[in-house]
């Protein structure tokens, strides 16, 4: 994943409820109600994932106690366990799975990981189905419930299917030469002296 991956950046914008576990120097600006340059122990702030991530990577100890976001809380996870295929993940968090993966790499949680993996497994079969059988051009109705990772998967399947159908109808696209292939001038430059010519008698 590249540094400038827009999905990655948007995903890490998601804020998590945090409680400062020590007095943090020069971080008073994070809490609008704080009058001092210090972030007092016990004050509650919502911090984006990228900030929490870089804190944890830079400092060994935990400055913040981090709670999972609403959509990774017990109530939402119960809904996922009940039937993952009917849930509109886009409304929970548009980068649900990428977020869950990053969150889990920071805060290991075996149960949560299993739930997320199972949910994706169930939803994957639905995506497989709809991406291979998308007849009409408007796919917005079908992708409404999918998060960004699933949408990419859906569009990959759709492109495969479209290309295949196009080929079956023999509406071929133009095959372009490899950029490093010898150019036509090569003949004139004398590397290749004779051009093959079809002649019949």
């Amino acid at each position, binding site marked *: 994943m590249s540094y400038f991956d827009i999905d990655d950046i948007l995903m890490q914008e998601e804020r998590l409820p945090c409680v400062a576990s020590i007095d943090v120097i020069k971080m008073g600006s994070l809490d609008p109600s704080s009058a001092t340059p210090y972030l007092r122990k016990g004050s509650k702030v919502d911090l984006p994932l990228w900030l929490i991530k870089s804190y944890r990577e830079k400092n060994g100890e935990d400055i913040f106690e981090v709670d999972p976001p609403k959509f990774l809380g017990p109530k939402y996870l119960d809904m996922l366990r009940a039937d993952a295929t009917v849930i509109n993940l886009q409304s929970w968090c548009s980068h649900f799975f990428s977020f869950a993966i990053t969150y889990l790499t920071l805060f290991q949680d075996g149960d949560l990981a299993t739930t*997320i993996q199972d949910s*994706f497994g169930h939803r*994957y079969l639905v995506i497989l189905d709809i991406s291979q059988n998308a007849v009409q051009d408007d796919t917005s109705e079908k992708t409404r419930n999918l998060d960004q990772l699933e949408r990419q998967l859906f569009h*990959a399947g759709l*492109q*495969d299917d479209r290309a295949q159908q196009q*080929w079956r109808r023999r509406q071929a696209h133009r095959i372009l030469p490899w950029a490093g292939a010898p150019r036509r001038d090569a003949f004139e430059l004398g590397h290749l002296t004779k051009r093959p010519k*079809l*002649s019949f008698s």
Partner: protein
Amino acid sequence: MEDPLGKLMPSEVEFIAEDAPITITPNFQAGVFLFLKERVGPFKPQRPMEVPMWLAVSLRRRDKCVIHVPEWLSVDALTTKLEEEKMQQKQFVHMPAHFQEISSILFDVASQDVPNSEECRQLIQAIVDVRTAKIRQGGLDDMKDSLAIQLNNVTQMEITSIRQFACHAMDAFNRLSSV
């Protein structure tokens, strides 16, 4: 995730398939043709010879030859293959490499040379449908339980038809299982 192999389109797979040799009977006389990859000829009228598919297509379009249809492209052979394909639940029957592309080209360019071409076309389509269903059931469905899938005897065109989806799905499962 960007597909490491780039986007190989079905028409490009067909282009690759056109390198396969095929037997023709020319109706003209000519010397040896020199091409970048190979030399073909000499051509003698009524003398069957092997040429690359793309040359056969080009000659057939100008009515300079008759294409000998490969043995597997006949109603009998295809019916047997279809039966075998239906018999096996998970395994794939061995089909000639590029059978979809070659048959598609032949139906397009030389449908008069193929006996019972309409029936053959339907049989090919039926075989492709059965195999597609198998790829779906045996390969893509199982992907959620394992990190690798094995599909023997699957042709290049069939892989192309699922490549982007499979790559994305593998990537997603891999990322999810690493936490």
